[in-house]
């Protein structure tokens, strides 16, 4: 198994290096510090959620509702601050808290009622987005104070603020998944839930915590998103879940659970963002890049499947 992991991630790393070389030959604006940092800024929201999604998919689940949670928290941030009149820091905390609640609700449906995660989060995808639309009634909230934009548009030590947040979260996630008891429980629950349960691993509690974390981090991503684009709309984050899942699966996490790493997810994210940006700079129209990402996703899985079959056989 570990041989396979090394292989998938080394394929990705090679692909990433190749992509960086080819793309920087295509455009001299690509491989500059400014551009790369800016790409990091754009990647942070999807990246944050992808960290949690790695846990979710390793535990043999999936969370389709993350984009909707992001939209709901963004709307609530505006409502708490402007309509209810709470101070903005409190509104931010409350927003993230609601995100966590939304995630907890997902986990509750999945563990308590044994609803398959795909269906449970498909239902809450509609529900949370519907709540966001119903609460906002298509009104947008603007006019946030200047300090709020530090989060999404500012820099600390020359690096975008949200990139620091993302990197900190990534290190924590890598440690938790890689070497903690919780991480091992995640792998065990994903690989074989029944066996894990018989070995005394609290499978349900692990899964409940994972979905809660997914909701919390989607809430955090929502705050950063609002701060970056300086407005709140109910359609924020629509379709985001597919970007996130693509990055995680591209990173070698098995959709069947039990296998995957944070480093793989980081590589997957970097490859996706480099392709989007590099192709755009090379003159490919915005949506042509999505085609390439789709092709790369399918091709990577085919290649790593073939390699795995070879090493198995």
């Amino acid at each position, binding site marked *: 198994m570990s041989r396979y992991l090394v292989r998938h991630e080394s394929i990705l790393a090679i692909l990433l290096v190749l992509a960086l070389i080819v793309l920087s030959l295509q455009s001299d604006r690509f491989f500059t510090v400014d551009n790369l940092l800016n790409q990091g800024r754009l990647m942070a929201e999807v990246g944050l959620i992808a960290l949690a999604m790695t846990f979710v998919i390793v535990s043999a689940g*999936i969370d389709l509702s993350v984009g909707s949670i992001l939209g709901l928290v963004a709307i609530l941030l505006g409502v708490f601050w402007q309509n209810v009149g709470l101070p903005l820091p409190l509104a931010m905390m409350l927003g993230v808290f609601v995100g966590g609640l939304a995630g907890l609700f997902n986990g509750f*449906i999945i563990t308590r*009622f*044994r*609803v*398959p995660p*795909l*269906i*449970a989060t*498909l*239902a*809450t*995808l*509609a*529900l*949370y*987005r*519907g*709540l966001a*639309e*119903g609460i*906002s*009634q*298509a009104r947008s909230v603007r006019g946030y104070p200047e300090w709020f934009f530090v989060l999404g548009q500012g820099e600390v030590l020359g690096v975008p603020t949200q990139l620091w947040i993302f990197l900190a979260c990534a290190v924590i996630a890598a440690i938790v998944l890689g070497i903690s008891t919780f991480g091992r429980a995640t792998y065990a629950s994903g690989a074989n839930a029944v066996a894990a349960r018989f070995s005394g691993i609290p499978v349900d509690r692990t899964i409940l915590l994972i979905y809660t974390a997914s909701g919390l981090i989607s809430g955090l991503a929502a705050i950063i998103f609002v701060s970056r684009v300086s407005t709140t709309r*109910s359609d924020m984050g*629509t*379709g985001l879940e*597919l970007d996130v*899942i*693509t990055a995680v*699966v591209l990173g070698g996490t098995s*959709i*069947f659970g039990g296998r995957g790493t944070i480093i793989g997810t980081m590589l997957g994210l970097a490859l996706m963002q480099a392709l989007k940006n590099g192709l755009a700079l090379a003159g490919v*129209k*915005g*949506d*042509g*890049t*999505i*085609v*390439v*990402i*789709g*092709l790369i*996703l*399918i091709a990577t*899985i*085919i290649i790593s*499947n*073939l390699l795995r079959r070879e090493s198995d056989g």
Partner: protein
Amino acid sequence: MAVAAAIQRRSAASRLVEAYGQELVVLGAIIALFVIVGTVNPRFLSENNLINIFSGNAYIAVAAIGMSLVIISGNIDVSVGSLIGVLATIAGTLAVQGYPIWVAWTVPVLVGMAINACVGALIAYFRIPSIVVTLGMLSILKGGLISITAGTWITGMPPEFFIAQARFFGIPAPVYFMVVLTVVMALWMRYAGLGRAIYAVGGNAEAARASGLYPERICVAAFAMHGFFAGIAALLFATQLQVIQSTVPPNLELTVITASVIGGVSILGGTGTVIGSTLAAILFACISSALVFLNVSAYWLRAVLGLLILATVLADMARRRRHRVAGRV
């Protein structure tokens, strides 16, 4: 004798409930909606509105038939919305460029079948999970569509092209498509060999293989048929208005999947019927129309749908658990 007949009647009724429980629930919900909303606001039952409900959403029901096959076979397709957009654009482009109408009608259906047969082959022979392949297809189709059309609308199709606007005996053509395809497929799934094989593979692929079926071929066949229905859905979608937009309603794939699931198709594979998915598609259309007639802001529509899916799924899980317990005793 009378007692025996009564017992027989009751067991026939209970068998019906057993076999079509979910379908009956959805049907009951539709009838309840018509009665309640019709009483509050009689214009809900006006001919115009009924035609809007049934005709305007028939393409979702048709797409949900194909989705049901795919889900019953134990797979899923999250790319069907983009596929419908691509096929609608192909149909419109062919019609505008002066090809015969029958070409503009059949080519999209064949292309849909070919694309989805490839998707099915990737899933079956390369053993890639369907959600991963169709996630990739979603990107490819959506990105390809927008970058090729550059977001422009197609107009100026010849008048014969608009099959969805035709009426026979006062009933719009899409309704015939929906009803006929649903009935034919319901019978086909129940009695045809391939139809039953799709259930068998979705229920337990290894058991199906042991009994002499070829799960790989059946997976490809299910996806190809799904492509056929996506093609028909695309035609109905493309011809219902005078223009074809290069975008489809956002989250169309989720609407289609939801229709299948609420109609009783279990996401675990192996169970469900296309009658249920069509009824569920009609129920959605009724709900969104009812909200308008009840003066509820349309912005709440999706929240209502979400609650509905959740309630259906929870009820389904509860029923399953009861069955399992009963089965053990």
